[in-house]
């Protein structure tokens, strides 16, 4: 009988997140699991072991776990990136941010030249005019790129698009178009902005092609490459209304279960959209594999703070702006969740505003009093404006929070000046308060809303810097240790996968983030710049190959 080889990986440092053995200098891997942990000498005593020095000068952490991302994070890269911040595509190519309208035009000109077919629309994404100090991209700007090729630029909010004259001409969008959400100039002609989905859909074939192409199987492979470059070994597709369809499952399994795919993917259903029953979701959960996880619930209760659609408690938005919207009726949340609660399914609810948090807390109180569950792990997703008193209730109910820490960097300045003002902006994503209340914390990027990258998320929670360089809510900063825990074991806990991933513990899946620098030994202000060598997923090594 042959004994399976155990591979021993010595490393410059290993941080395990396992309290009984927080550090080690070598880790042994057998098959797809961690086998043992300790010094290299201790590991040499393992029967039939081989030493592999690939990581001899690297720093090993548990593979990062992104508990709030979306499958479409990679598909957008089929189109031209026009966002304000630098961003890397799935092949590792770095796209500098477009800092003004001139940059956007230049970026699109290059893309225009690269398309052979003169009729093929030029599709772009990520435009965020909030950073362009009041100047608005309009159709005449895009006409400087092409007068003949239709151009469609989706804004970062995904609620609007800017198009050029050629597109409006070919789709018949003109002065007589009666729809609201199509701003017109003094002569009554549309300026090229299409607001909200109904208006965006008038972009016809460009609109269909933008979203249609993103469904290709290749985009799933690209998602794996994005994760790999970020040190992420488990990520989520949080809210997929077709997660119970056999076709969807087959398409995901074909990619994720492939030994060359570098990550685990957990797909949550959206029963408010899909009408999936608890029985159906339980049956779907049984179709999970070691790498593809299914059978959990995501509900969206309100909108976003930067879009002024999150539901806020008094005093609400600045300048007496009206309160946000309910995406799902608050009075029906208990009824919607009850069957999933009864069957013990994992439930995460999107609540950006503090009023939405109240509704979720009341709902969980009701459900738990009807039918107590000892280990429910109800998680508040985003949870951005939550007050200390609400954190006490969250702790009492044994709920978890997954904070949208990246907001501090990407929109912190706008939250101070435009949405909620400095006092409440300081308490946004208050990880310190949450941890002090004893609430299990994770943090996320919500890719594609912000780039897939756990170290950036951790860096924001540690430093709380805004894009303009000021520190927002200094008292809510947390330690490097706490932040790294949140993006590994903290996130695994909320996915109910903490017995399998999240720490370097013998018996768990051998999932690693492999770093070039030691996050505990650098200036915490530089954590986001730590180079990621690659990952290990289920014992298989995946170097991040950058182009």
């Amino acid at each position, binding site marked *: 009988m042959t004994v399976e080889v155990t591979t021993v990986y010595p490393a410059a440092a290993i941080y395990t997140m396992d309290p009984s053995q927080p550090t080690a200098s070598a880790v042994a891997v057998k098959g797809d699991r961690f086998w043992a942990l300790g010094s290299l000498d201790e590991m040499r005593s393992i029967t039939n072991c081989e030493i592999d020095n690939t990581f001899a000068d690297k720093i090993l952490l548990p593979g990062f776990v992104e508990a709030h991302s979306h499958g479409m994070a990679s598909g957008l890269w089929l189109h031209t990136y026009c966002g304000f911040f630098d961003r890397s595509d799935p092949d590792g190519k770095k796209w500098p941010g477009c800092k003004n309208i001139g940059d956007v035009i230049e970026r699109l000109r290059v893309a225009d030249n690269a398309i052979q077919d003169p009729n093929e629309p030029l599709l772009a994404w990520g435009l965020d005019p909030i950073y362009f100090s009041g100047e608005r991209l309009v159709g005449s700007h895009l006409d400087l790129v092409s007068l003949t090729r239709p151009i469609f630029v989706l804004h970062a909010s995904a609620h609007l698009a800017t198009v050029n004259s050629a597109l409006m001409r070919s789709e018949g969008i003109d002065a007589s178009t009666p729809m609201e959400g199509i701003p017109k100039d003094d002569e009554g002609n549309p300026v090229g902005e299409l607001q909200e989905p109904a208006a965006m859909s008038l972009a016809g074939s460009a609109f269909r092609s933008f979203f249609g192409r993103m469904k290709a199987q290749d985009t799933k492979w690209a998602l794996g490459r994005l994760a790999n470059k970020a040190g992420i070994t488990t990520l989520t597709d949080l809210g997929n209304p077709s997660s119970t369809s056999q076709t969807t499952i087959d398409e995901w399994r074909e990619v994720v279960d492939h030994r060359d795919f570098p990550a685990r993917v957990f797909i949550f259903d959206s029963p408010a959209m899909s009408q999936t029953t608890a029985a159906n979701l339980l049956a779907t959960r049984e179709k999970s594999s070691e790498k593809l996880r299914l059978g959990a619930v995501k509900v969206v209760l309100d909108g976003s703070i930067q879009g002024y659609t999150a539901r806020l408690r008094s005093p609400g938005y600045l300048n007496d702006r009206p309160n946000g919207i309910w995406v799902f009726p608050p009075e*029906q949340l208990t009824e919607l969740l009850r069957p999933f609660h009864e069957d013990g399914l994992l439930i995460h609810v999107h609540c950006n505003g503090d009023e939405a948090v109240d509704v979720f807390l009341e709902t969980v109180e009701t459900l738990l009093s009807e039918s107590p569950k000892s280990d429910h792990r109800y998680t508040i997703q985003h949870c951005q404006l939550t007050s200390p008193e609400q954190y006490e209730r969250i702790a009492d109910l044994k709920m978890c929070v997954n904070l949208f820490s990246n907001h501090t960097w990407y929109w912190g300045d706008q939250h101070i000046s435009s949405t909620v003002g400095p006092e409440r902006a300081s308490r946004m994503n208050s990880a310190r308060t949450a941890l002090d209340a004893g609430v299990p914390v994770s943090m996320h990027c919500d890719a594609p809303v912000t780039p897939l990258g756990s170290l950036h998320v951790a860096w924001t929670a540690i430093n709380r810097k805004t894009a303009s360089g000021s520190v927002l809510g200094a008292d809510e900063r947390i330690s490097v240790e706490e932040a790294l825990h949140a993006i590994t074991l903290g996130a695994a806990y909320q996915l109910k996968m903490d017995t399998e991933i999240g720490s370097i513990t013998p018996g768990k899946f051998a999932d690693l983030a492999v770093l070039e620098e030691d996050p505990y030994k650098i200036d915490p202000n530089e954590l986001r710049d730590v180079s990621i060598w690659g990952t290990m997923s289920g014992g298989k090594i995946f170097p991040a190959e950058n182009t």
Partner: protein
Amino acid sequence: MSEKVLPFTVIGGYLGAGKTTLINSLLSDSTIGRLAIVVNDFGEINIDESLILSHDGDTISLTNGCICCSLTDGFAETLTQIRGRSNDIDRVIVEVSGVGEPRKIAQWGHTPGYSLDGVVVLVDTSTVIERSKDSYVGETICSQIAAADLILLSRCDLLEEDEIRSVEHWLKEESSAMALRGPISASMLFGLEEIGTEKNFSSLDHVSATLEFPASIDLAAIDIWEKSRPSGIVRVKGFLSINERPENSTEIQMCGPNLTMRASQSDSPKNALVAIATPGTPKASVIKWLNLLSLPN
């Protein structure tokens, strides 16, 4: 060739306002043609099993020619599918979710191949004022009411006359739209009266008046007429022959304050309009208003 244009009506209102009841009654009303009903999910409408001809993914076909479509693939895709079978459909009705924004959804009615007919918002008369003060959903309810072209009061049978009147009074503060007491015939929602056959609304005391015009009408006259709409007018529907548009007869639709005009698809319809007004409106004033159209400039 002019493509068929489907009238598009939005039905909104908070949870429990009676949207489902209304839609089920529309589905069983044989006088309003073949409907495509667009809903968030089929569970809400609870269709009588015996009416279902086939169930194909996102579409349920009924034996009476109506179809129900769910929004699983989103609005753009669903409307493309309905447009593909527009020869078999006479009208589209969209049910907005209980917290949805009817005015936003109404914009889909301007999609090519469709024509926005109006936004009907249902109100549970017995609870609306109390719920409008609810800290969670009060603003949602009020913004839905403000977005209406026509408000339909449900559950009036549970209330005394003075209670209904106080709700009607309150609604006037919240919305410029006309409020009608339900239940009403579907034709009231869509203004589908056959010209010349005034229905009897005696049980509801709504006022209906029809006027046939002997000669073609100037666009300028329509402008003046529209601006002089007396309070109480709920719906206007019909066909006019307009001097500036000699090639086709023009179909006229007015739902609340919204006037829509489009080339008629009927063969030589009558040059006539029917107007419907709230109970208590003097019929003479309605006729007088319609007559403004035939006055020389």
